[in-house]
């Protein structure tokens, strides 16, 4: 009889394991961006925004998305920020309330804190701009794997700046959690945000 009970237990645990494995694999949230597991420490920085100092210390406590761009950027920056805004809306009220987006300017000569604030606020209240001296910006950009250089191409709006357009997602503890490439879609970003925020 003892053997009979043991077999029932084994069979039961087999069924339980199979069900758990099946639901885990079927339902397991899968990130579309590059998940950093374990999260990587983010380099500390403090820059200036229209509302005062803005950096890793101010971003702690909420998820934040870092993007490096500039306000005279004709294509990549506005589309990336618009896609992010759409992803936040799609991810739901928790994402809209709880995720902050910071565009760090790679054009500190032209982008003042006020100009950045006027530009980023068009995408939503959770969007902010940060700037600093050219040396500070160079240091922060390099620390986040971002390369940028003034392009030789001149447009009616002035010179262009070529730059990396990868997005870095920081967690509330100020660690790097996820990287999104520029080709990550709105649906994919929204899905990742839902997983990060616990649905």
């Amino acid at each position, binding site marked *: 009889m003892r053997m009979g*009970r043991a077999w*029932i237990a084994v069979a039961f645990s087999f069924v*339980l394991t199979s069900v758990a494995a099946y639901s885990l694999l079927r339902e*397991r949230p899968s990130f579309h961006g590059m998940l950093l597991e374990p999260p990587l420490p983010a380099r500390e920085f403090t820059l200036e925004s229209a509302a005062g100092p803005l950096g890793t210390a101010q971003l702690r406590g909420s998820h934040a998305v870092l993007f490096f761009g500039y306000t005279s950027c004709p294509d990549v920056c506005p589309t990336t920020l618009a896609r992010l805004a759409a992803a936040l809306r799609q991810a739901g009220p928790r994402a809209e309330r709880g995720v902050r987006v910071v565009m760090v300017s790679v054009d500190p000569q032209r982008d003042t804190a006020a100009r950045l604030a006027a530009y980023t606020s068009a995408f939503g209240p959770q969007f902010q701009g940060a700037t600093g001296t050219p040396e500070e910006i160079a240091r922060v950009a390099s620390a986040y794997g971002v*390369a940028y250089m003034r392009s030789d191409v001149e447009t009616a709006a002035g010179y262009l700046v070529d730059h990396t357009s990868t997005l870095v997602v920081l967690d509330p503890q100020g660690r790097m959690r996820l*990287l999104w490439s520029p080709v990550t879609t709105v649906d994919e970003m929204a899905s990742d945000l839902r997983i990060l925020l616990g649905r």
Partner: protein
Amino acid sequence: MVSRLPSWPRVLSLAAASLAAALLLVSFGFATLKPVRVVPRQELAPGWVLHGPDGERVSSEELRGRIVLYTFSPLDCGARCVPMDSVLRELGRRLSSDPVDGVHASLVTIALDPDPTAERLADAGERRGAVGTEWRFVGGEAAALERTVRAGFRVWYEEGPDGSWRFDPAFVLVDGTGLVRERYRFGVPPVSYLLEDIRLIAREARASGGFARLAYEAAHLFGCFPR
């Protein structure tokens, strides 16, 4: 008759215990047998813009999608760089003849001399055997080197008053997404180590979709590293 019926609390406890044992066994097996091996993700590599031997601007962005092995040395390095150069020449030759698992890899040596001319970079490439391989020399102004090499890659270097150099002859392996995957700080690593790590990163980049991705994430979690 009644006594033949199982005692459900006991069955449940047994089931929970065997489930926990199974999970423990699987975890232990994964961690010790390392069925999937990965090179750990360490940190984000710095972004940089420097210039190459043709005077062209080269940036980390151009290398995105490729695995890059970074080294750091003055252009006139003398006997100190002979072992390093020998490994890089061999690796450069092997990589240029055959992409590793379909993924391209590059070797980049960042010159520690501030503001080297394009001619000096080209000359160093020729003298040290980089020409015709996947190995290239880049350089830049002092502030960019400080940011990229010292602050970014955390590689120490110093030029003495007599023009001699003291530096950390580190090798840093960066994947296609721009993450540092390995730092070889103790001596010059053998070509076989480097090729093995490049191959593992290439395989992970190629195969880590769908179910395989879970296995790779588990490998990172359980520390299934090659060495």
